């Protein structure tokens, strides 16, 4: 059963029949985390790097921002029995429009925010595929932690 993770959304699951999927990442970033022992996984699709932009919105929906969404993802997984040291972490998305050097380069800024937050959590990234000007879709199979990535226009491939 596909569980769709929308823009500014997060889903966690321990149901072996479920597949978490997030379409169209653009400059947004998708972080998939899986604990192979507890067999629980989560997928966060955040849009912007910093919640200080609008704290009211962050409170209403912490999954919109990296600095509120990532802690929420770790917390939700730990509540389900996941242990940080066992977590497999996948990071993807963070694309940018051509010629988008400094101004409004949300893709790049999202990538930096993820690096900073994950190092704060002392979590290592197992697989990272970010940047470029492509649109990506990611899915995570809860039964075994398999992750599949698709660049729009291409087929899904296992990562």
């Amino acid at each position: 059963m596909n569980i769709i993770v929308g823009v500014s959304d997060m889903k966690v699951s321990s149901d072996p029949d479920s597949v978490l999927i997030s379409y169209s990442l653009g400059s947004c970033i998708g972080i998939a985390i899986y604990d192979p022992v507890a067999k629980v996984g989560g997928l966060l699709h955040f849009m912007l790097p910093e919640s200080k932009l609008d704290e009211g919105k962050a409170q209403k929906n912490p999954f919109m921002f990296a600095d509120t969404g990532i802690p929420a993802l770790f917390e939700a997984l730990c509540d389900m029995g996941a242990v940080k040291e066992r977590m497999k972490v996948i990071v993807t998305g963070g694309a940018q429009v051509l010629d988008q050097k400094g101004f409004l380069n949300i893709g790049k800024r999202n990538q930096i925010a993820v690096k900073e937050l994950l190092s704060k959590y002392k979590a290592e990234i197992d697989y990272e595929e970010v940047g470029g000007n492509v649109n990506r879709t990611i899915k995570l199979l809860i039964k075994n932690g398999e992750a599949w990535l698709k660049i729009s226009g291409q087929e899904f491939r296992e990562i």
Partner: protein
Amino acid sequence: MTDVAAILKDIDKLKPIPQVTHRVMAIAGKTLSSASDLADIIEYDPALTANLLKVCNSAFFGLARKMDSIHQAVAYLGMDQVVDMVLMNLGSANLKRAQKGYDLREGELWKYSVLSALMARDIAQSKGIGDKHLVFTAALLKDIGKVVLSSHVRNYFDEIEKVIREQDITFRDAEKLIIGIDHAEVGSMAAEKWNLSGRMVDIIRNHHLGAGWDEDDMELAAVYVADTLCMIMGIGAGSDGLAYRFHPNVVEKLHFSETDLQMMMASFGERIQEVEDLLSNE
């Protein structure tokens, strides 16, 4: 290179714009039009009337009472809102289908078109730019050319992808190079065939700000910024991804700070679900 003339013939396969839309757009453009004139025109078209009432009564508006007539809906929601609904209705027949060449699932192009139209209209309104209904409609229809070009993009995708990678050009330039025509051009030709205004045709043709766009055209700027923000958010981004150019000077001309644009993304990020609900009622 493909047979461009044959592609252009496919424009005729698009579902034509209903006559009532032209009349509604004419009314919307006049400052002295009354709400009751607008309702009268819409009620001549029973299918449109039924559809609009369904949308009015959907969760998107969350109205306390059910609307039984367009007159009531116009009085309750205001003219602008009802005009927007009529305009949204005009694109749906063509834009709802999946566009395999662009790797867009069913409804994706439609959802993106509606969101970018709402965003462009907000920009026009907040910056006091010209005709907000023109901006809304142009943003809504700007990618209609993709519907015509989709199967060709699918056939030539490997070549398109290769030239983008090797020559650092945009997806639109690659379409032009490999297929012989790009989706913005095809879209503007469709708009011409539908007798839409010259301004609409121009904005659709130039919505990626290719060569020769008028830097002082603020209506075009509003459409462009909305399109770019949607792309960054991943809305409607298919196999063409984010392979279009960013023009910071347009953002400067509109006096947007980076924070303003991020705020707009955050606000529209919250509205995605609302628009999905609205479209599922269409």
